[in-house]
């Protein structure tokens, strides 16, 4: 009887004590984990995890911090170009957080490389990289905790917005300033300056009109062939049809272009220009008549031939040119306020009569 009582008392005590004890243990575990994470973060903005660390720090329950994890494959033999770009953006984001004033231990950035923690990939049933998943402080990741890479892209700003969305931590992305442009400019200036200094006794080349005219022409041709569009939009060089293996160099729509196409156009424009210059030279130069006639014929040939080729490319792209009356109203907006159409390029009208 006494024995039983003792057991009951003991049980009662132990039951009462166990949660308190567990709580304490949990807290110490938690603080250990947090300090561990903080230590790693202080070394590196993005913590590298392997399978064991992932289970202990992320998977195991006591946790009061969110962790954003990038699952990636950075080893060169994996040949994942996107992973590298995404990694750069992710590093920018993590560093912005690491060195910001608002830095706390509420959120950590980590990554798992496939070659270091393939078991994690298996555990989470993942087969694509890179993937960004937020492990919230409470509960398991939901659907929205997986970042929609296809839709939103991997720019650091987009990631920051998603992080703010999921965890309420607002990160101002600070990109390390890009010194490449000014540096190149400085080098160029220094080069020109040193050239001028070396040849200071003979600066005739600066007064060479051919050089200046040629560079001006190059610039103009580069601009009129739409290289600025390429620079801003970054289109592919050419399109290869995956089914037939056919490579098309000309984009079918008039609103877009491939890089190859702009090079062709640049060449054609330059040829027409050359033709006009040749025509002029043929009439004014003091060579003998035979050569001048050849120049003249070559000039007019260049002008006519290349212009007609240019026109045919244009016709292929601009459907309905020249005299077809199929398009009634081209939606090239010249108003102040029309938006690019996401769906159609040209409006179509079907009036059922």
């Amino acid at each position, binding site marked *: 009887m006494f024995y039983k009582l003792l057991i009951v008392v003991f049980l009662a005590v132990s039951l009462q004590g166990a949660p308190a004890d567990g709580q304490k243990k949990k807290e110490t575990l938690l603080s250990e984990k947090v300090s561990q994470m903080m230590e790693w973060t202080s070394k590196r903005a993005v913590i590298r995890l392997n399978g064991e660390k992932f289970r202990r720090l992320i998977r195991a329950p006591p946790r009061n911090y969110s962790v954003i994890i990038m699952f990636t494959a950075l080893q060169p033999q994996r040949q994942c170009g996107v992973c590298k770009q995404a990694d750069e953006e992710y590093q920018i984001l993590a560093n912005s957080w690491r060195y910001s004033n608002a830095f706390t231990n509420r959120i950590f950035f980590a990554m798992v490389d496939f070659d270091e923690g393939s078991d994690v990939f298996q555990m989470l049933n993942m087969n694509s990289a890179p993937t960004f998943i937020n492990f919230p402080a409470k509960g398991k990741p939901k659907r929205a905790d997986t970042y929609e890479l*296809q*839709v939103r892209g991997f720019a650091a700003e987009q990631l920051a917005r998603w992080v703010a*969305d999921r965890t309420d931590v607002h990160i101002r992305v600070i990109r390390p300033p890009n010194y490449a442009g000014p540096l190149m400019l400085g080098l160029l200036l220094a080069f020109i300056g040193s050239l001028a200094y070396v040849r200071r006794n003979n600066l005739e080349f600066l007064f060479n*009109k051919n050089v200046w*005219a040629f560079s*001006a022409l190059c*610039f*103009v041709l580069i*601009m*009129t062939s*739409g*290289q*600025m*569009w390429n620079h*801003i939009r970054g289109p592919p060089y050419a399109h290869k049809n995956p089914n037939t293996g056919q490579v098309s160099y000309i984009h079918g729509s*008039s*609103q877009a*272009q491939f890089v190859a196409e702009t090079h062709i156009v640049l060449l*054609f424009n330059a040829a*027409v*220009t050359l033709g006009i*210059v040749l025509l*002029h030279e043929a*009439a*004014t*130069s*003091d060579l003998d*008549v035979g050569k001048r*006639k050849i120049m003249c014929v070559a000039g*007019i040939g260049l*002008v*006519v031939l290349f*212009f007609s080729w*240019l*026109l045919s490319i*244009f016709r292929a*792209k*601009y459907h309905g040119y*020249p005299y077809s*009356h199929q398009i*009634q*109203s*081209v*939606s*090239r907006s*010249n*108003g*102040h*306020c*029309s*938006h*690019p159409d*996401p769906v*159609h390029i040209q*409006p*179509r*009208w079907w*009036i*059922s*009569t």
Partner: protein
Amino acid sequence: MAEHHTASDCKHKASSNAGGSVSGNGRHSSPAGCGGSGGGLSGGLTQPAGWQSLLSFTILFLAWLAGFSSRLFAVIRFESIIHEFDPWFNYRSTHHLSTNGFYEFLNWFDERAWYPLGRIVGGTVYPGLMVTAGLIHYILNLLHVTVHIRDVCVFLAPVFSGLTAVSTFLLTRELWNQGAGLLAACFIAIVPGYISRSVAGSFDNEGIAIFALQFTYYLWVKSVKTGSVFWTIGCCLSYFYMVSAWGGYVFIINLIPLHVFVLLLMQRFSRRLYIAYSTFYIVGLVLSMQIPFVGFQPIRTSEHMAAAGVFALLQAYAFLQYLKDRLTRQEFQTLFFLGVSLAAGVVFLTVIYLTYTGEYAKIHIPIIASVSEHQPTTWVSFFFDLHILVCTFPAGLWFCIKNINDERVFVALYAISAVYFAGVMVRLMLTLTPVVCMLSAIAFSSVFEHYLGDDMKRENPPAEDSSDEDDKRNQGNLYDKAGKVRKHVSEQDRPEEGLGPNIKSIVTMLMLMLLMMFAVHCTWVTSNAYSSPSVVLASYNHDGSRNILDDFREAYYWLRQNTDEHARVMSWWDYGYQIAGMANRTTLVDNNTWNNSHIALVGKAMSSNESAAYEIMKSLDVDYVLIIFGGVIGYSGDDINKFLWMVRIAEGEHPKDIRESDYFTPQGEFRVDKAGSPTLLNCLMYKMSYYRFGEMQLDFRTPPGFDRTRNAEIGNKDIRLKHLEEAFTSEHWLVRIYRVKKQENRQALDHKLRNIAAKQKYTSKKVLPSRFH
């Protein structure tokens, strides 16, 4: 030193010309006199100068006429109507100006826009356009020619295109010769890149601004050539007109200092340049600050700083020149010059760098990115707007740089900067077009002048060539070309070995064919792409007959006649000006996108669900909602297609409530059918667009509720509206107007209260109404 250099340069050129004429080989280092049309005729006629000017006058007049008539497609096809969006605002303000007077216009506070904020119109517009139209209307009325102000507005841009052609002629004549000038005038009269902004009815700033731009440049070149204050003051006045007309004046105030700066670098400094720029900068600055909208910007903002820097540099340089006459330590002077110019160059580059990084940041705000004109330019756009000119104008640039002088430096800089800006932004194709016309005209004319005439008569051009150089030296009697031509006409008559008539005629014919193709292309583009008023739409049947879709005006007039005078209409900002102009109702947002958060609020209302939207609409006092829906006729510029921009702009301001990703399917597609995201299928814009559309079967091949714009059967056919009711739908469903229901008079009492009321019947009768009202 620089003076000396220029002088020797002139001498060199003159001597090379002399050599050319002696050998009789037609070697031109500088432009030939009368090209193309003038050259052939002047030989045999007794009064060549008279004929020449008559011919030029006729050609210019014809160019004006051709330019004017090719801009009339819209008027002939539709009617004399104001186009598009911005012109409606300009028209409305011009109307205000002509009815209430100039001072009333300057003080106008428009309380019918941007409800409840209102807009200070007088201080936030470039008044040049309105004042020009108002003045023409006033003068015509003084002469008892009674025209409506609307007709003045509609035909203003075509008339000014003629003036543009004339000023382009003048500028090109200064740069090259008369023949090239005439060709340039013909080009600019019909080139699509300029027509796109100046068809009849397109009553917008650019229509008159390009004239002001070209005229200012002409006067600037003239004043650099002559160094006379008279021309410079003319240039300043023209610049003032440009500032009053268009924000693009910034292009002038940067290009002219750049010209001066490059001339300094090329050691082409002269007294003429000093006088021209000093006068221009000071007078132009003071004049430009008279425009209320510009105000103190010219001395505060970074894009005007380059002009100030160059002004300071020019003064320093001139001072050094002065000192050099007094002192002899030349080495030191040169060193000092180098230092100064380097410092100025660094300042110049920094300013430009700062300006464009600022521009870059602006591009990334969604509302700016959403406007299709702020996109970079594909080569197709270049070709579409300029056709043959885009391939030939580099040749003109080549000739200009090969035969460089002060004013050709200007045109080269103009070409290079304009082509850069046109590459960055489609809209700035407009500033590129004039210089392309001029340089192409130079290219064509320098080909034609050698191939058009006979071999025998090809000797006169060099004659005027040297007279051009004469001009440079004795600056007094500069522009008396007529007399000079006569002087040199019978100078040489020497046969030479030419290319032979066959080759020449073949080349001439082929070149003429190219020009003919250009003319055909211009007419086609004008007729098909740039002559749509976009207020009235047209569709063509298979037999070629035309249907006019007048839904927009139908709806706007419905609003005008069936709604309260002070009703507030909510729509996307594209339609704000049209609602104000045609329906004369108060709008919440319009095309003057000065308040992004207000626009974002409207975007939020459109993209939230109905009850959330109702709260916003209540807080904004909205009475009617107007949307554009193209699903019935397949009109692609409707609100559903613009919808993602509304979401993006709303998300920019309210990231908690609106998320762009919610409107996509998990695969990242934007679709309106059953697979579309539920947020999209239940948002206000979707509901208003497709309300009762599910009952409508358009033809037998497609199911009911088939959207022709997006080629999909809509996903939500059973749409019920709780807080809105359909008020009006136009004939082709293009415009749909909904009335926002007022709140019910009494809030429905909830159950508990009613029970209490039942217990204390007599007291509640008195208490309740007072409590709930």
